């Protein structure tokens, strides 16, 4: 991240959002809204004094996954790039109650600016890579896991905070009561491979659950029960890791964790079926870690329509071809990187992102854009200039020429032919799918089927 922040060829726009996109491959205009941070980026040195003195503490539901607090003026996490804080205006005392201004008083260079407004930046770019990542599925949607009923039922990301040296317990694995757990259950496929939630495999959970099992064994020596349908250790050296964790004494139970109950004593009871033995199984534990599903970002549909990108049935962005064009989209010049396209672990994300970067380099190196010959063509003699084709085009590829007649930009046209069907004067034809060709097909098929 630091390298990207320092790179001469990379301009980072953080705390920013894309407002609109127009143009086409090689010539996009992207309007970006830079949200007001209330801190002047040009002079802030990132000393952190404001953060230290800010009196308002807020539960950090993003980086700390609800297990820690941050201030109302904060950086998202320690290594955030750029190293410049932002004021959370919904919680800041000055913005909510009109008093405080402590950060302004302590800032040694006067970088705090409460009056800052959102700014707009227009970028002219040749290609776009979407890398918006994934979201975590909310386990309260399936009540059998009792998530939220006990502080000792954690999601995988919460356990990550618990075991992290910078987390709320400085890396000690402790229950909410502050004790080391004696028994821990890990449940795979919570919300994944489940027709009541997501039917797909979230791909990353098996491996991080193995890591969690290892960490619990290593740090606490507790008994670990790992409930799974199967362990998908698919990558290089992954299965070896699985074997190592087995040798560390983790109890692997082949059977999905069916239910978690909170007992009056505060202990947790996990019910499952041990499919190897063919009988139900119950264990009592002090801590449950749910390997929750990953899913598309909640604003994926907004992003999809902004950039003209499709989505697959699972909600992730659609690649141009599932095997042969995994980083391209159906909009020329727009590429996908990482888990916005499908659930991915770090290794796969790096490979996918490198591929996306190479696709952009390849596009730019060529210096020319290869367009499909399957485009619509206007017969200017027949065009009456009614303009009916202009609003139906999903790519805004049609405009009016100086003579008032329709003109198609073949770079933008993707050849769907919607304008052909809309043209009342029959003045448009879709190359490779002309009226003549389709009529010949229809007539030929019907004649042959007699």
């Amino acid at each position, binding site marked *: 991240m630091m390298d990207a922040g320092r790179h001469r060829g990379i301009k980072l726009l953080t705390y920013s959002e894309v407002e609109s996109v127009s143009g086409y491959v090689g010539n996009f205009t992207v309007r970006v809204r830079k949200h007001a941070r209330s801190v002047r980026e040009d002079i802030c040195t990132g000393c952190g004094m404001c953060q230290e003195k800010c009196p308002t503490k807020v539960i950090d539901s993003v980086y700390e996954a609800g297990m820690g607090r941050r201030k109302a003026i904060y950086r998202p996490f320690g290594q955030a790039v750029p190293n410049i804080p932002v004021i959370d205006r919904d919680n800041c005392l000055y913005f909510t109650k009109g008093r405080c201004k402590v950060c302004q008083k302590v800032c040694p260079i006067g970088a705090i600016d409460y009056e800052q407004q959102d700014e707009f930046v227009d970028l002219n770019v040749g290609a776009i890579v979407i890398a918006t990542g994934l979201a975590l599925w909310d386990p309260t949607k399936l009540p059998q896991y009792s998530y939220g009923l006990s502080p000792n039922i954690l999601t995988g990301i919460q356990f990550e905070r618990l075991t992290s040296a910078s987390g709320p317990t400085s890396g000690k694995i402790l229950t909410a009561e502050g004790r080391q757990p004696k028994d821990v259950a890990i449940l795979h496929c919570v919300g994944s491979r489940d027709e009541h939630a997501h039917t797909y495999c979230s791909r990353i959970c098996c491996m991080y659950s193995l890591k969690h099992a290892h960490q619990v064994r290593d740090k606490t020596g507790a008994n670990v029960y790992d409930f799974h349908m199967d362990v998908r250790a698919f990558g290089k050296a992954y299965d070896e890791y699985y074997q190592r964790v087995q040798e560390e004494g983790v109890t692997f139970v082949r059977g999905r964790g069916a239910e978690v109950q909170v007992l009056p004593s505060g202990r947790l009871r996990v019910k499952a079926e041990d499919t190897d033995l063919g009988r139900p199984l119950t264990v009592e534990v002090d801590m449950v870690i749910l390997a929750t599903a990953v899913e598309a970002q909640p604003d994926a549909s907004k992003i999809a329509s902004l950039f003209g990108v499709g*989505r697959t049935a699972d909600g992730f962005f659609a690649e141009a071809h599932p095997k042969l064009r995994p980083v391209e989209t159906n909009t020329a010049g727009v590429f996908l990187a990482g888990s916005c396209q499908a659930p991915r672990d770090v290794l796969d994300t790096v490979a996918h992102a490198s591929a996306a970067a190479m696709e952009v380099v390849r596009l730019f190196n060529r210096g020319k854009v290869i367009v499909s010959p399957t485009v619509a063509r206007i017969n200017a003699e027949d065009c009456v200039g009614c303009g009916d084709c202009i609003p139906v085009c999903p790519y805004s590829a049609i405009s009016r020429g100086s003579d008032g007649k329709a003109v198609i930009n073949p770079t933008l046209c993707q050849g*769907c032919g919607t304008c*052909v*069907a809309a043209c009342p004067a029959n003045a448009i034809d879709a190359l490779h*799918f002309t009226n003549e060709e*389709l009529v010949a097909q229809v007539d030929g098929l019907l004649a042959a089927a007699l």
Partner: protein
Amino acid sequence: MSSAAEGTAFEPRIIAFLCNWCSYAGADGAGIARLESPACVLPVRVMCSGRVSPEMVLRAFRSGADGVLILACHIGDCHYNSGNHRTVKRVPLLRNLLSYVGINPERLGLDFVSSAEATRFAQVTTEFAEKIRSLGPLSQEVGEASAGG
């Protein structure tokens, strides 16, 4: 009825306009999976269901089709974002026109099949073929209408 009574079961001819990205791929998938779908459904590939002009549908009926089925992407899944929205708006208007000229509007079908829905493709085409089979030949219907009116 009459053709069945004559001993040769009526086998309709149905033109199915399949969009390149969803339903055509779904049909392909049905073939790969060796699913059974009716042979009387004759596929014509178009880039988008939005390409299917009313003239093309009418042309198919004029050339002897007993039914026309348009299979589009599911709403929200259109490769071209909004092509299938146009189709969804066009089809009811076209059905009105069909009944005006004496063709049972049921003979024009619109359904949605994604590229992953091979089973659904087989099911939708089978059901549509069954419906057209029960409606009988178009020539008979148009004949009746003109005889009656």
